[in-house]
C-alpha cells in the first residue's frame, strides 16, 4: 500500500473544499473504508490524500413522519439496530444484515456503499425498490437525486467533483423483501439478488435486480404484472418469466448466465411472496 495523507475535517464545508481542491484520483473519500481499503491494498487506487468524514455530524438516523432519514456516515450496524426498521423497512433490514459480518458493519456506511457503487452491493437494489432519495452537498450547494439517477454504471455515480453524500431518505415504510444467492452464505458477494417492495401510497410494486453488471437496476417489466398488495400466482409467474429475460443476466466469474436465468425467477417469486405476506400482515 502506498502512503497517503488522511484529514478529518470537522465541517461539511471544509470537507467539500478539501475534496474539490484535488484532482480525480488524487483525493478519495473515506466513509468507512471497507471497500476503498481493498483498492488501496491492491494498488488499484493510489490517492495522495484521503478525506475522512468521521468528524462530520452525519452519523444520524431519524424518522421524520413516514420518512426515514439516514445520515451517510451512520455505520450499518447502527442502522440495523434502529427500533422498528425490521417492521417498517424489512428489505433494508435484510440487506444490511447481508453485508459482511458484524465487525465489518461497525465500519461500513450507507453513504460509502452508495458512493462506491459496487455492482454486487446488497444495499443498492433495496434503495432502488424503496425509491430512496440521495441528498448531496458540494461546491455548488445542496441537491437531491433519486437513487436510480444517482447510480450510473459500475463504480460510477452522479457525484460531481467535491460533492459528498449527506443523507439518504426513504419516503415511506413499504412491505418489502430482499433475497440473495451466494456460494457461501456469510461474508461473500451475492451472485444474484432481488428486492421487491409494495408502495401503499401509489399501490404499485418496485422490483430491483442486484449482483449483475453494470449496476443494480429497477425492473419495471417485472413489477407491472403484479396486481395489488396480494398478487395472484398467475401475476407472479408472469413477472418471474419477464425478469428471467433481463439482459443483465450474463456470465461472469461469480456465476454463469444459465444459473442466473434459472435462479432469478425463484428469488423473484420468493421475494414477492414474502413482501406480499408482509403487506397482508400490515393491512
Amino acid at each position, binding site marked *: *500500500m502506498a502512503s497517503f495523507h488522511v484529514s478529518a475535517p470537522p465541517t461539511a464545508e471544509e470537507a467539500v473544499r478539501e475534496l474539490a481542491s484535488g484532482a480525480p484520483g488524487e483525493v478519495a473519500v473515506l466513509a468507512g473504508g471497507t471497500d476503498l481499503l481493498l483498492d488501496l491494498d491492491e494498488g488499484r487506487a493510489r490517492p495522495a490524500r484521503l478525506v475522512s468524514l468521521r468528524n462530520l455530524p452525519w452519523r444520524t438516523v431519524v424518522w421524520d413522519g413516514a420518512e426515514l432519514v439516514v445520515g451517510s456516515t451512520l455505520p450499518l450496524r447502527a442502522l440495523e439496530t434502529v427500533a422498528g426498521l425490521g417492521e417498517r423497512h424489512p428489505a433494508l433490514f435484510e440487506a444490511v444484515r447481508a453485508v459482511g459480518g458484524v465487525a465489518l458493519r461497525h465500519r461500513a456506511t450507507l453513504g460509502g456503499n452508495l458512493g462506491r457503487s459496487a455492482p454486487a452491493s446488497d444495499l443498492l437494489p433495496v434503495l432502488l425498490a424503496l425509491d430512496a432519495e440521495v441528498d448531496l452537498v458540494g461546491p455548488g450547494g445542496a441537491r437531491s437525486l433519486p437513487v436510480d439517477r444517482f447510480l450510473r454504471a459500475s463504480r460510477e455515480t452522479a457525484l460531481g467533483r467535491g460533492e459528498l453524500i449527506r443523507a439518504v431518505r426513504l419516503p415511506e415504510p413499504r412491505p418489502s423483501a430482499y433475497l440473495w444467492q451466494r456460494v457461501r452464505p456469510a461474508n461473500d458477494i451475492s*451472485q444474484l439478488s432481488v428486492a421487491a417492495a409494495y408502495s401503499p401510497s401509489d399501490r404499485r410494486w418496485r422490483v430491483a435486480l442486484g449482483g449483475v453488471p453494470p449496476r443494480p437496476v429497477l425492473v419495471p417489466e417485472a413489477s407491472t404484472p403484479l396486481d395489488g398488495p396480494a398478487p395472484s400466482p398467475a401475476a407472479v409467474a408472469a413477472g418471474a418469466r419477464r425478469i428471467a429475460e433481463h439482459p443483465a443476466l450474463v456470465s461472469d466469474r461469480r456465476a454463469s448466465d444459465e444459473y442466473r436465468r434459472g435462479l432469478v425467477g*425463484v428469488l423473484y417469486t420468493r421475494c414477492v411472496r414474502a413482501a406480499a405476506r408482509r403487506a397482508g400482515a400490515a393491512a
Partner: protein
Amino acid sequence: MIRSFRPDAGAKLAGTAGFGYDLDRPGMRFGALVLAARAHGRLDSVDLAPARALPGVVAIAADDLSTLLDGAHGDPERPPFASREVMYDGQPIAAVAAPTLAGARAAAAAVVATLAPLPVVADLESVFPEWPEAPIASSAPIAAHVHARRGDVDRALREAATVVRGTYRTSGVHQVALEPHACLAEVRDGLWHVTTSTQSPFGVREDVAGILGIPERSIVVDGTWVGGGFGGKGASLVEPYALLLARAAGAPVRLALTYREAFRLGRTTLPSVVRMETGVTDGAIVARRVRLLLDVGTSLPGRDFATGYAIGFLLGPYRTPAFEVEGYAVRTHKPPFGPHRAPYAPQAAFVVESHLNEVARAIGEDPAAFRARHVLAEGDRTALGQEVSAFGLSEVLRRATAVRDAWRRDAGPGRGVGLGLGFWATNTGAGGEARVLLSPTGLEIVQGEREIGSGSVAVGLVAAAERSTGLPRDAIRVTYRDTSAAPFDAGVFGSRTVGALGQAVDAACRAALAALGDRLGGAGELRLELEGDEVVAIRGTARRPVRSLLTPEERRDGGLAADGRHTGAPRTIDESLVVEGGFYPYQDFTGAAHVAEVDVDRETGAVRVVRYAAFHDVGVVVDRPTATAQIEGGIVMGLGAALTEESIWSDDGRLLNPGLLDYRIPTLGEVPPIDVTFVEGFAGAGPFGAKGLGEPPIIPVPATIAAAIRDATGVSLTELPFTPERVARALKRA
C-alpha cells in the same frame, strides 16, 4: 486467569505468543518478492537497477546467487529464482529488502522483468482429450506413471454380473493457514540463522541446504508459534529468500508473505480426474479398475510424491480380488503439488465412496450394508497385499449406520442423510528423537518442533509423558530449542507427532525412570509423583525425592537427561503387483465413519449442513479435549473442501482467486453441531496403541456430504466442490 486444556491458550489469547509475523530485530530490513505475472514465459531480462536506485534497497535475482553463496551451487532442479523460463504464475523472479515494508513493496514494484509469453498448460484434461480411450503419448508432460494390478481385470469385468462406471473430478484446494509464511533471517558468525513459522525446523534446514548448496551444519533453524500449517509449512518456502537477502543486506531481514502471495506461491493439492469401474457378482466386488490423472503442477519427474499415494487411497479400504490402477502425474504450469491436510485422501474418499454408493444401488442394496460386507479388517490383505493390522473400520461403520438410520427416520422434506468412510495411516515411518530432563521439581521435554495449533506438541507430548511417568501435567513442560540444540525430528505432519514423537518421548521417559530405578532399588513399576513442589520416585515400598537420587553433575546440569528414539516398524506391500512407480505401505490402519444431515434447496442448489456425527477409530484417546478439537477442526475444513473451496485458474494459468473473499473457507455460520465419538481398542502405531488424528477427520467429509445430497435429491454429484450452481446444474440435468 485463563483456564484451558491448552497450556498455550493464555499467551495466544493475550497476544503475547510470538508468531512469524511478530519477529523483529534492531536494524531489521523488510523483504519482498517479485513474482512472475504469467504462468509460462521466456524471461528475457530482469532489471534490478530501478529498485537498487531507491534508498536503502538491496535487490537480488538469479545472477547474484553465485556471489552471495561464495560460489556454492544449490540443487539445479530447485533454483530459488527463475532465470530463463517462468513455469508458473507467482514464481519468484527477484527479491528485495528495504528499511521499511512500504519501501520493500515499492522496490519490488520497481523491478522490471521482460517476460515473453509461451504456451500455457493450465488444465490437465486439455492435454489428454481422448483419455483413457486413447493411450497417452510419450511426448505428454508426465512427471510420473504408476501402475499396479492383480488378476485378470479385463476378464473379471467382462464376466461380472453388474459393472458400474463413473468419472469424477476434484478441485485444487489451499491450506489457508491464518498466518501466511513468515520468517526472519540473519547471517552472522559464519552461520545462516533463520527463525520461521514452520511445521518442520529440521526439514527447513535440509531444504535450505539443498536449495542454496550450503552444508546443514552452517544452518540454524529456530521456530516460532505457528498460526496453522495444514501441510503448507512442512518444507521451506520463504526461508531461502530471507537468508539470501540477509546476506546481501548485511542485516537481519524479515520476509512475510501476504495472503495473496501465500495463495499464489503455495504448494498444495491440485485438480484430478478419476475414472472408476467396479464389477460385482452375487453381491461381491470381483474387480475394480481405477484410472487417475493428477495435476502435479511443476513437480519434477521423480519428485512427485503424490500419485502413488493418491492411487492407494483410490483403492479404498475394501476387499477387492482383482484390480488394476494406473495413474499419471501431469505437469502443468502451476506451483508444484504439495501436501494439504491428508494429501488427496479427502478427494479419493469422495470418489471411492460416491462410486461405491452407485455400485450398491445398482444391485439394490443399502450402501452401508454393502460396505459392511467389504470393509477390511485385521488379518485381511489390502489390494496391494499388505496385511491389515488392528482396524476399527467395521465398528465405526456399524455405529455410524445406526445414527444414519435414526436421523433418516426424522428427516423432513428436502433433507437427506449420508454416510461416508475414510481411512488413513499414522505416519510413524519418519524418525524422531526426544530428550527429557528430570529435575527435582518436574520434567522438561526438549523439542525442536513447534506447536502448530493442533495441540500435538503442547498437549500431546505432555500427555504422553504424563502416561509414561505418572507425573501430573502441571509438572511437565515443553522447552523449545533451535536445530543446533534440539533432538532431531522429521516434522509436525502426517498425523505423526503424537504417534512417532510421542513414542520417542515415552522411550526417553522410560529411560529416565530406568536410570532412577537402579538408584532407588525396590521392585515393580516405578512411578513419579508430585509432593508439594517436589518430584518423588516410588517403587513398591521404596519412596524417595528425585532430588536425593541425582548425581552432583545432574544437579548442576538441571536434572537427569535421557534420550528416546522412535523408528517406524517396517511394513511391506506385495511388490510383484507393481508394474511401474512407487506405491506405499501403511504403518497402521485408521478408520473413520461420518454421518451428515443436509438441507438442499432444490430451486437454488444451496446446501446447508444441519448436523454432523463423527466416529473415529483412534486406538486410545491420549487427550480427550485435544482429540475432540482436532476432529471438529478437520470436519470444518472438510466442509470447506466439500461445499465452497476451490482454486480457480484462468485458461492462461493465472490463479483467479488468491484471496479470502473468493477462496471461500467456511465461516462459523456454516458449521453445524458436531457430535464426536471415539472408538478405542484397535491399537495403532503410536504410543500406548494410539493412532494419529491430524488427518483422519477431514477425509470422509466430502464423501459424506455427497451421500447426504444424494439422499435428499436422488442426484449423485461427480465434481467437487458442491457449490449451489453445481448442485442446481446437476438437479436440472437429472
